[in-house]
């Protein structure tokens, strides 16, 4: 069951990451258009502001994909010397601290959104963007990361309890397959 869950999480986040990548591409295109327009003497202005929002949203939504691809850097110095069970315990402990920390971050991000909603705050910029419009998707990304981290943690813990250590290492180990291959 755990492996199907992990498989689903991976596929789901693959899709999310692709959408995030497309968002970044679109932003690059927008910036380019703005540069060209500026050379021609006009500009829509506010590209900087939009880039900032895109970065915030792309960052929070990409986190879970990176987690599942084992992309968040860890120092392998003691872990690499441990046996298979030792490595599994290192991985599970690291996963637990990550999950706890990310949950706390997501929780602490809510007051930011709450304030923007309560005051109907607008950015102090030419676009006067209502901040909640961009902060809600950003906040949702952190919630997504926290939920994905919990699900991954639970799935990996089950695998370890069942003694399927190799599979657990594939789910929460130190290096992704890609890095080992390339």
């Amino acid at each position, binding site marked *: 069951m755990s492996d199907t869950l992990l498989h689903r999480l991976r596929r789901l986040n693959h899709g999310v990451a692709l959408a995030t990548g497309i968002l*970044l591409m679109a932003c690059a295109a927008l910036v380019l258009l703005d540069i060209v327009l500026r050379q021609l003497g006009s500009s829509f202005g506010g590209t900087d502001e939009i880039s900032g929002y895109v970065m915030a949203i792309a960052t929070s939504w990409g986190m879970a*994909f990176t987690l599942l691809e084992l992309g*968040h850097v860890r*120092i392998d110095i003691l872990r690499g010397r441990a046996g298979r069970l030792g490595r599994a315990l290192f991985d599970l402990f690291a996963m637990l601290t990550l999950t706890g920390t990310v949950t706390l*971050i997501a929780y602490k991000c809510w007051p930011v959104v709450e304030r923007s909603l309560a005051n109907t705050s607008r950015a102090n910029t030419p676009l006067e963007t209502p901040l909640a419009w961009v902060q809600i998707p950003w906040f949702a990304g952190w919630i997504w990361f926290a939920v994905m981290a919990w699900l991954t943690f639970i799935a990996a813990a089950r695998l370890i309890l069942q003694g399927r250590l190799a599979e657990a290492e594939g789910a929460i180990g130190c290096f992704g397959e890609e890095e*080992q291959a390339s």
Partner: protein
Amino acid sequence: MILALSIGLLGLLALSIPVGIVLFLLGFGMDTFFSAFPLIRGLGNLVWSTSNNATLIAIPFFVLLGEILVRSGIATRTYAALDRWVSWLPGGLVHANVATATMFSATSGSSVATAATVATVAMPQAEKLGYDPRLFSGAIAAGGTLGIMIPPSINLIVYGFLTQTSIPQLFLAGLVPGIALALGFMAITAVICLIRPELGGTRRTFPLAEMLRALIQLVPIILLFTIIIGTIYNGWATPTEAAAVGVMGAIVIAALFGGVSIRMFAESLLGTVKITSMIMLVVIGASFLNFTLASAGLGRELQALLDGLGLTPTGLILVVVLIYIVLGFFIETLSLMVVTIPIIVPLVVAQGFDPIWFGILMIVLIEMALITPPVGLNLYVVQGARKSGKMSEVMVGAIPYVIAMLLMVGLLILFPGIALYLPSVLGGG
């Protein structure tokens, strides 16, 4: 506080907790034990203001640019072309390794990507032409490190962001030391192969016509570099905007010279998202730690410690260099940079050193960390691409290049102008 911080940092890292998370945990620790106010209330705002940032979007853009160039096969063609031009030197194809890495550094911001690319295209040639596997693979690992020195560089963007230093000036400052290092690598290779010709494989010369034809393959990369750097220093675009121009340029080049497919494109986007989130978790963690350290009064305590030690400014720099060399055995590039910036940069700047100069010095030291065992990411990347032979061969092969880097560190300390001359003449905001 400093002791608790250092022990906490090394201890948590050794537990193999993700680096970004370690930085947050240290921040929580600072807040709990050393701060008069509950700083954690500011966490949400800090996460928002760090990631809502138009400067940092240059990171995904530069990563994407590199991914597109690598995956569209431009790298392979560049390597073949450079082979035509440099293989007459003693050491032959080894120079092509360094030269290709240098050219890719000029367009991509990442060392590992550069090393991986060159390793994949170069390795099959090594056995065929009878090169010594140690020198050959060592040169790739070392050449790849230039990616973070020669602009555009993601590491310099992160440094500029965390220390409030001008990114265009950092880029300018990295140019001369980067090229000097590349030439240094080639010089060392030539010297080694003159002394022991059997290491260097066959020297080959190519007819002039073929060399000229090969030149066409280099045009896209040179063009792209010129566009990126040119738009920044003409004042047309900020580094972020130049990165966006670079992405579009890479797509056009890939379409004209290489292969573009939906699959290749999707892979490039996925790779970009993965690397960007990895970097951003570390950067946000570092900003939070920075914030708690400043509030807890780390600066005063460090100053007091330093006064107690009675170090001269030069003494301080030497101690700092030593710290980086030692930490560099165990910790890698971005992590090493980000965990040390909040502590070391204020200290160095307070002694009257130029933050731009120090940024470049730090980059050389971090490049060294990439190719010093036991933890040296580029060594593993190159070993991964070899598929045979021992890891220790790559490590031995990298030693001459570590020496070149140490020389560079010495030169930068003796002659800061190597880094600072260009920014002082050209300005660049």
